[in-house]
Protein backbone atom coordinates (compact mmCIF):
# COMPACT_ATOMS: atom_id res chain seq x y z
CA UNK A 1 0.00 0.00 0.00
CA UNK A 2 1.37 3.44 -0.78
CA UNK A 3 1.66 6.16 1.82
CA UNK A 4 -1.28 8.24 0.61
CA UNK A 5 -3.61 5.28 0.97
CA UNK A 6 -2.14 4.42 4.38
CA UNK A 7 -2.52 7.99 5.51
CA UNK A 8 -6.18 8.00 4.44
CA UNK A 9 -6.84 4.83 6.42
CA UNK A 10 -5.03 6.32 9.40
CA UNK A 11 -7.07 9.53 9.25
CA UNK A 12 -10.30 7.54 8.89
CA UNK A 13 -9.44 5.65 12.07
CA UNK A 14 -8.70 8.89 13.91
CA UNK A 15 -11.94 10.47 12.64
CA UNK A 16 -13.89 7.43 13.80
CA UNK A 17 -12.43 7.93 17.30
CA UNK A 18 -10.51 4.66 17.13
CA UNK A 19 -7.29 4.81 19.15
CA UNK A 20 -3.99 4.40 17.36
CA UNK A 21 -1.85 1.67 18.95
CA UNK A 22 1.95 1.22 18.83
CA UNK A 23 2.01 -1.39 16.06
CA UNK A 24 -0.41 0.49 13.78
CA UNK A 25 0.87 2.37 10.76
CA UNK A 26 1.15 6.10 11.46
CA UNK A 27 2.52 9.10 9.54
CA UNK A 28 6.15 9.76 10.44
CA UNK A 29 5.24 13.26 11.53
CA UNK A 30 2.52 11.98 13.88
CA UNK A 31 5.15 9.76 15.50
CA UNK A 32 7.67 12.60 15.76
CA UNK A 33 5.14 15.07 17.13
CA UNK A 34 4.01 12.56 19.72
CA UNK A 35 7.56 11.73 20.82
CA UNK A 36 8.24 15.43 21.21
CA UNK A 37 5.04 16.18 23.08
CA UNK A 38 5.03 13.10 25.36
CA UNK A 39 8.71 13.42 26.23
CA UNK A 40 8.38 17.15 26.97
CA UNK A 41 5.48 16.25 29.18
CA UNK A 42 7.56 13.54 30.93
CA UNK A 43 10.49 15.91 31.43
CA UNK A 44 8.10 18.48 32.91
CA UNK A 45 6.91 15.97 35.51
CA UNK A 46 10.51 15.17 36.44
CA UNK A 47 11.78 18.75 36.55
CA UNK A 48 8.52 19.72 38.28
CA UNK A 49 9.72 17.84 41.35
CA UNK A 50 12.48 20.39 41.92
CA UNK A 51 10.62 23.59 42.88
CA UNK A 52 8.43 21.67 45.30
CA UNK A 53 11.24 19.47 46.60
CA UNK A 54 12.75 22.75 47.74
CA UNK A 55 10.08 22.93 50.49
CA UNK A 56 9.93 19.34 51.72
CA UNK A 57 12.34 19.98 54.58
CA UNK A 58 10.66 23.26 55.48
CA UNK A 59 6.97 22.33 55.29
CA UNK A 60 5.20 23.89 58.30
CA UNK A 61 3.95 20.60 59.79
CA UNK A 62 4.48 16.86 59.62
CA UNK A 63 1.13 16.55 57.83
CA UNK A 64 2.15 19.05 55.15
CA UNK A 65 5.52 17.36 54.79
CA UNK A 66 3.89 13.96 54.23
CA UNK A 67 1.46 15.46 51.69
CA UNK A 68 4.23 17.23 49.79
CA UNK A 69 6.38 14.09 49.74
CA UNK A 70 3.44 12.10 48.35
CA UNK A 71 2.82 14.74 45.71
CA UNK A 72 6.45 14.88 44.60
CA UNK A 73 6.52 11.08 44.48
CA UNK A 74 3.42 11.15 42.27
CA UNK A 75 5.20 13.51 39.85
CA UNK A 76 8.05 11.00 39.55
CA UNK A 77 5.48 8.29 38.81
CA UNK A 78 3.82 10.47 36.19
CA UNK A 79 7.17 11.01 34.51
CA UNK A 80 7.65 7.24 34.35
CA UNK A 81 4.19 6.57 32.86
CA UNK A 82 4.94 9.12 30.18
CA UNK A 83 8.47 7.93 29.38
CA UNK A 84 7.02 4.44 28.86
CA UNK A 85 4.31 5.83 26.57
CA UNK A 86 6.99 7.65 24.53
CA UNK A 87 9.07 4.47 24.33
CA UNK A 88 6.21 2.65 22.58
CA UNK A 89 6.94 4.97 19.63
CA UNK A 90 10.42 3.52 19.19
CA UNK A 91 12.69 5.80 21.18
CA UNK A 92 14.86 4.49 24.04
CA UNK A 93 14.73 5.66 27.65
CA UNK A 94 18.42 6.56 27.71
CA UNK A 95 17.98 8.75 24.65
CA UNK A 96 15.03 10.53 26.24
CA UNK A 97 16.91 11.13 29.49
CA UNK A 98 19.91 12.30 27.52
CA UNK A 99 17.85 14.84 25.61
CA UNK A 100 16.75 16.34 28.92
CA UNK A 101 20.17 16.34 30.57
CA UNK A 102 21.93 17.88 27.58
CA UNK A 103 19.34 20.63 27.34
CA UNK A 104 18.20 19.47 23.92
CA UNK A 105 14.66 18.76 25.08
CA UNK A 106 12.28 21.30 26.53
CA UNK A 107 10.09 21.05 29.59
CA UNK A 108 7.32 23.31 30.85
CA UNK A 109 8.69 26.81 31.45
CA UNK A 110 6.68 27.20 34.62
CA UNK A 111 9.30 25.18 36.51
CA UNK A 112 11.92 27.80 35.79
CA UNK A 113 10.34 30.11 38.35
CA UNK A 114 11.57 29.98 41.97
CA UNK A 115 9.53 28.89 45.02
CA UNK A 116 10.24 31.72 47.45
CA UNK A 117 7.72 31.15 50.23
CA UNK A 118 5.52 28.37 51.60
CA UNK A 119 2.55 30.00 49.86
CA UNK A 120 4.24 29.20 46.55
CA UNK A 121 3.59 25.52 47.28
CA UNK A 122 -0.09 26.42 47.62
CA UNK A 123 -0.03 28.45 44.42
CA UNK A 124 1.70 25.68 42.48
CA UNK A 125 -0.84 23.07 43.49
CA UNK A 126 -3.82 25.32 42.89
CA UNK A 127 -2.71 27.13 39.72
CA UNK A 128 0.08 25.13 38.09
CA UNK A 129 -1.48 21.73 38.70
CA UNK A 130 -4.88 23.25 37.97
CA UNK A 131 -3.68 24.44 34.56
CA UNK A 132 -1.93 21.13 33.91
CA UNK A 133 -5.13 19.24 34.74
CA UNK A 134 -7.07 21.20 32.09
CA UNK A 135 -4.62 20.00 29.52
CA UNK A 136 -4.43 16.47 30.89
CA UNK A 137 -8.17 15.93 31.05
CA UNK A 138 -8.28 16.80 27.36
CA UNK A 139 -5.40 14.40 26.67
CA UNK A 140 -7.32 11.48 28.23
CA UNK A 141 -9.11 11.50 24.84
CA UNK A 142 -6.00 11.88 22.70
CA UNK A 143 -5.80 9.61 19.64
CA UNK A 144 -2.69 7.66 20.69
CA UNK A 145 -3.70 4.78 22.98
CA UNK A 146 -0.67 4.53 25.31
CA UNK A 147 -0.64 8.33 25.84
CA UNK A 148 -4.38 8.40 26.58
CA UNK A 149 -4.06 5.54 29.08
CA UNK A 150 -1.15 7.21 30.87
CA UNK A 151 -3.24 10.38 31.09
CA UNK A 152 -6.18 8.59 32.67
CA UNK A 153 -3.92 7.31 35.44
CA UNK A 154 -2.34 10.73 35.89
CA UNK A 155 -5.66 12.56 36.08
CA UNK A 156 -6.90 10.19 38.78
CA UNK A 157 -3.88 11.07 40.91
CA UNK A 158 -3.62 14.72 40.05
CA UNK A 159 -6.81 16.04 41.58
CA UNK A 160 -5.46 15.80 45.13
CA UNK A 161 -2.51 17.92 43.99
CA UNK A 162 -4.74 20.82 43.06
CA UNK A 163 -6.93 20.50 46.14
CA UNK A 164 -4.04 20.41 48.62
CA UNK A 165 -2.66 23.59 47.02
CA UNK A 166 -6.00 25.40 47.14
CA UNK A 167 -6.38 24.32 50.77
CA UNK A 168 -2.96 25.77 51.66
CA UNK A 169 -3.93 29.06 50.00
CA UNK A 170 -7.30 29.16 51.76
CA UNK A 171 -5.75 28.54 55.18
CA UNK A 172 -3.14 31.27 54.65
CA UNK A 173 -5.79 33.67 53.37
CA UNK A 174 -7.80 33.14 56.56
CA UNK A 175 -4.70 33.53 58.75
CA UNK A 176 -2.85 36.59 60.02
CA UNK A 177 -2.48 39.70 57.86
CA UNK A 178 1.06 38.60 57.03
CA UNK A 179 -0.07 35.12 56.01
CA UNK A 180 -2.78 36.54 53.79
CA UNK A 181 -0.25 38.87 52.23
CA UNK A 182 2.03 35.91 51.59
CA UNK A 183 -0.79 34.05 49.81
CA UNK A 184 -1.67 37.11 47.74
CA UNK A 185 1.97 37.63 46.82
CA UNK A 186 2.24 34.01 45.62
CA UNK A 187 -0.91 34.42 43.54
CA UNK A 188 0.48 37.66 42.08
CA UNK A 189 3.69 35.95 41.00
CA UNK A 190 2.22 32.66 39.73
CA UNK A 191 -0.92 33.88 37.96
CA UNK A 192 0.57 35.02 34.67
CA UNK A 193 3.13 32.23 34.32
CA UNK A 194 0.26 29.77 34.92
CA UNK A 195 -1.70 31.30 32.04
CA UNK A 196 1.41 30.98 29.87
CA UNK A 197 1.40 27.23 30.51
CA UNK A 198 -1.35 26.83 27.91
CA UNK A 199 1.14 27.90 25.26
CA UNK A 200 1.02 30.55 22.51
CA UNK A 201 -2.36 31.98 21.58
CA UNK A 202 -4.14 30.15 18.76
CA UNK A 203 -3.28 32.85 16.25
CA UNK A 204 0.43 32.08 16.77
CA UNK A 205 0.33 28.35 17.32
CA UNK A 206 2.20 26.26 14.79
CA UNK A 207 0.80 22.83 15.61
CA UNK A 208 -2.34 22.66 13.47
CA UNK A 209 -1.86 18.96 12.71
CA UNK A 210 -2.27 18.20 16.39
CA UNK A 211 -5.96 19.01 16.09
CA UNK A 212 -6.46 17.18 12.80
CA UNK A 213 -4.79 14.07 14.24
CA UNK A 214 -6.69 14.52 17.51
CA UNK A 215 -3.51 14.58 19.55
CA UNK A 216 -5.01 17.73 21.02
CA UNK A 217 -8.76 18.13 21.22
CA UNK A 218 -9.08 21.74 22.32
CA UNK A 219 -7.06 24.80 21.45
CA UNK A 220 -4.69 26.63 23.82
CA UNK A 221 -6.99 29.65 24.06
CA UNK A 222 -10.09 27.57 24.75
CA UNK A 223 -8.43 25.76 27.63
CA UNK A 224 -6.91 28.97 29.00
CA UNK A 225 -10.33 30.64 29.05
CA UNK A 226 -11.98 27.75 30.93
CA UNK A 227 -9.14 27.82 33.46
CA UNK A 228 -9.57 31.56 34.03
CA UNK A 229 -13.35 31.29 34.41
CA UNK A 230 -12.98 28.56 37.04
CA UNK A 231 -10.07 30.05 38.95
CA UNK A 232 -11.50 33.55 39.32
CA UNK A 233 -14.45 32.09 41.20
CA UNK A 234 -12.14 30.00 43.40
CA UNK A 235 -10.06 33.05 44.26
CA UNK A 236 -13.18 34.93 45.31
CA UNK A 237 -14.19 32.12 47.67
CA UNK A 238 -10.92 32.36 49.61
CA UNK A 239 -10.78 36.16 49.42
CA UNK A 240 -7.74 36.61 47.17
CA UNK A 241 -7.49 38.96 44.19
CA UNK A 242 -6.42 37.92 40.69
CA UNK A 243 -3.67 40.36 39.61
CA UNK A 244 -5.36 41.57 36.43
CA UNK A 245 -7.13 44.93 36.40
CA UNK A 246 -8.77 44.14 33.05
CA UNK A 247 -10.51 41.10 34.48
CA UNK A 248 -14.26 41.53 34.04
CA UNK A 249 -17.27 39.23 33.61
CA UNK A 250 -18.71 39.48 30.13
CA UNK A 251 -22.44 38.78 30.22
CA UNK A 252 -22.57 38.32 26.45
CA UNK A 253 -19.84 35.71 26.06
CA UNK A 254 -20.47 34.25 29.53
CA UNK A 255 -16.72 34.32 30.07
CA UNK A 256 -14.30 36.63 31.80
CA UNK A 257 -12.54 39.23 29.69
CA UNK A 258 -8.97 39.58 30.83
CA UNK A 259 -5.68 41.41 30.17
CA UNK A 260 -2.68 40.62 28.07
CA UNK A 261 0.01 37.97 28.56
CA UNK A 262 3.57 39.27 28.42
CA UNK A 263 4.75 37.09 25.53
CA UNK A 264 8.23 38.59 25.66
CA UNK A 265 8.65 37.10 29.11
CA UNK A 266 7.23 33.79 27.88
CA UNK A 267 9.62 33.60 24.92
CA UNK A 268 12.49 34.60 27.11
CA UNK A 269 11.92 31.80 29.62
CA UNK A 270 11.37 29.27 26.82
CA UNK A 271 14.67 30.42 25.30
CA UNK A 272 16.44 29.49 28.53
CA UNK A 273 16.68 32.85 30.25
CA UNK A 274 14.15 32.36 33.05
CA UNK A 275 15.10 32.88 36.69
CA UNK A 276 15.96 29.19 37.32
CA UNK A 277 16.64 27.51 33.93
CA UNK A 278 20.31 26.85 34.65
CA UNK A 279 19.76 25.83 38.25
CA UNK A 280 17.03 23.30 37.31
CA UNK A 281 19.09 21.60 34.64
CA UNK A 282 22.17 21.52 36.87
CA UNK A 283 20.10 19.92 39.65
CA UNK A 284 18.84 17.22 37.24
CA UNK A 285 22.33 16.48 35.95
CA UNK A 286 23.67 16.26 39.50
CA UNK A 287 20.84 13.94 40.59
CA UNK A 288 21.52 11.70 37.59
CA UNK A 289 25.25 11.57 38.25
CA UNK A 290 24.89 11.14 41.99
CA UNK A 291 22.46 8.29 41.34
CA UNK A 292 24.85 6.38 39.09
CA UNK A 293 26.10 4.15 41.93
CA UNK A 294 22.52 3.14 42.75
CA UNK A 295 21.90 2.01 39.19
CA UNK A 296 25.23 0.18 39.13
CA UNK A 297 24.47 -1.49 42.44
CA UNK A 298 21.05 -2.59 41.15
CA UNK A 299 22.68 -4.13 38.09
CA UNK A 300 25.32 -5.87 40.19
CA UNK A 301 22.71 -7.18 42.61
CA UNK A 302 20.57 -8.52 39.75
CA UNK A 303 23.61 -10.27 38.28
CA UNK A 304 24.49 -11.81 41.65
CA UNK A 305 20.93 -12.98 42.19
CA UNK A 306 20.74 -14.56 38.76
CA UNK A 307 24.04 -16.39 39.38
CA UNK A 308 22.72 -17.72 42.68
CA UNK A 309 19.50 -18.98 41.04
CA UNK A 310 21.50 -20.64 38.26
CA UNK A 311 23.79 -22.43 40.74
Amino acid at each position, binding site marked *: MDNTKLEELFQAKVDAELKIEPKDWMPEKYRRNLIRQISQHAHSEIVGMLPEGNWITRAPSLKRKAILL*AKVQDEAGHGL*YLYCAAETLGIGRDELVNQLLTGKAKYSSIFNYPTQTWADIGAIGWLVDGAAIMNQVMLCRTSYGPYARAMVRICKEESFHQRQGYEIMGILARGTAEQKEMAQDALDRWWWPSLMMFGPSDANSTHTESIKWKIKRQSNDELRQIFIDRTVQQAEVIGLTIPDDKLKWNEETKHYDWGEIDWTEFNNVVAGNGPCNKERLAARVKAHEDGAWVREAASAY*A*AKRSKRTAA
Partner: protein
Amino acid sequence: MSNLNEKDWPLWEIFIQSKRGLEHKHVGSLHAADAQMAIENARDVYTRRQEGNSIWVVPASAISASSPEDQGAFFDPADDKAYRHPTFYTMPEGAKYI
Protein backbone atom coordinates in the same frame (compact mmCIF):
# COMPACT_ATOMS: atom_id res chain seq x y z
CA MET B 1 26.97 -13.33 34.08
CA SER B 2 28.31 -9.84 33.63
CA ASN B 3 26.42 -6.80 34.89
CA LEU B 4 23.76 -5.44 32.61
CA ASN B 5 24.44 -1.88 31.70
CA GLU B 6 21.70 0.34 33.09
CA LYS B 7 20.61 1.36 29.63
CA ASP B 8 20.04 -2.29 28.74
CA TRP B 9 17.67 -2.94 31.63
CA PRO B 10 14.80 -4.83 30.06
CA LEU B 11 11.28 -3.48 29.77
CA TRP B 12 8.70 -5.28 31.90
CA GLU B 13 4.97 -5.27 31.28
CA ILE B 14 3.06 -4.93 34.52
CA PHE B 15 -0.23 -6.67 35.37
CA ILE B 16 -2.11 -5.87 38.56
CA GLN B 17 -4.92 -7.68 40.28
CA SER B 18 -6.92 -5.01 42.06
CA LYS B 19 -8.96 -7.37 44.25
CA ARG B 20 -8.97 -11.06 45.08
CA GLY B 21 -11.12 -12.88 42.56
CA LEU B 22 -10.55 -10.42 39.73
CA GLU B 23 -8.25 -10.88 36.73
CA HIS B 24 -4.78 -9.38 36.49
CA LYS B 25 -5.01 -6.37 34.21
CA HIS B 26 -2.28 -4.69 32.18
CA VAL B 27 -1.47 -1.28 33.68
CA GLY B 28 1.74 -0.21 31.95
CA SER B 29 5.42 -0.99 31.84
CA LEU B 30 8.74 -0.09 33.43
CA HIS B 31 12.45 -0.84 33.25
CA ALA B 32 14.19 -2.92 35.91
CA ALA B 33 17.36 -5.00 36.22
CA ASP B 34 15.48 -8.19 37.09
CA ALA B 35 12.03 -9.58 37.89
CA GLN B 36 12.25 -8.99 41.63
CA MET B 37 13.16 -5.33 41.13
CA ALA B 38 10.44 -5.00 38.53
CA ILE B 39 7.91 -6.19 41.12
CA GLU B 40 9.21 -3.74 43.73
CA ASN B 41 9.26 -0.86 41.26
CA ALA B 42 5.76 -1.77 40.06
CA ARG B 43 4.56 -1.54 43.65
CA ASP B 44 5.95 2.00 43.89
CA VAL B 45 4.87 3.15 40.45
CA TYR B 46 1.46 1.51 40.06
CA THR B 47 0.05 0.82 43.54
CA ARG B 48 0.61 3.98 45.59
CA ARG B 49 -3.12 4.13 46.38
CA GLN B 50 -3.91 0.51 47.24
CA GLU B 51 -4.70 -0.26 43.61
CA GLY B 52 -3.37 -3.77 43.87
CA ASN B 53 -3.16 -6.93 45.83
CA SER B 54 -1.04 -8.96 43.44
CA ILE B 55 1.47 -8.04 40.73
CA TRP B 56 2.69 -9.97 37.69
CA VAL B 57 5.69 -8.78 35.71
CA VAL B 58 6.48 -10.15 32.24
CA PRO B 59 9.51 -9.28 30.10
CA ALA B 60 8.07 -7.26 27.21
CA SER B 61 10.25 -9.28 24.84
CA ALA B 62 8.40 -12.47 25.87
CA ILE B 63 5.07 -11.21 24.54
CA SER B 64 3.99 -12.20 21.04
CA ALA B 65 1.16 -10.22 19.53
CA SER B 66 -1.23 -10.50 16.60
CA SER B 67 -0.49 -8.03 13.88
CA PRO B 68 -2.81 -5.07 13.32
CA GLU B 69 -2.46 -5.25 9.50
CA ASP B 70 -4.05 -8.70 9.43
CA GLN B 71 -6.71 -7.71 11.91
CA GLY B 72 -9.57 -7.99 9.41
CA ALA B 73 -8.76 -11.41 8.00
CA PHE B 74 -7.61 -12.75 11.34
CA PHE B 75 -10.82 -12.04 13.21
CA ASP B 76 -13.40 -12.40 10.47
CA PRO B 77 -14.19 -16.10 11.03
CA ALA B 78 -16.30 -14.85 13.96
CA ASP B 79 -18.14 -12.22 11.91
CA ASP B 80 -20.89 -14.41 10.43
CA LYS B 81 -21.66 -16.53 13.47
CA ALA B 82 -24.39 -14.57 15.14
CA TYR B 83 -25.79 -17.91 16.42
CA ARG B 84 -23.03 -17.87 19.05
CA HIS B 85 -24.95 -15.14 20.86
CA PRO B 86 -28.03 -15.83 22.98
CA THR B 87 -29.93 -12.97 21.34
CA PHE B 88 -29.95 -14.94 18.03
CA TYR B 89 -32.72 -17.21 19.30
CA THR B 90 -36.47 -16.51 19.37
CA MET B 91 -38.08 -17.41 22.64
CA PRO B 92 -41.83 -18.00 22.93
CA GLU B 93 -43.71 -15.29 24.74
CA GLY B 94 -44.30 -16.00 28.39
CA ALA B 95 -41.41 -18.44 28.88
CA LYS B 96 -39.58 -17.61 32.09
CA TYR B 97 -36.04 -18.00 33.39
CA ILE B 98 -34.51 -18.61 29.95
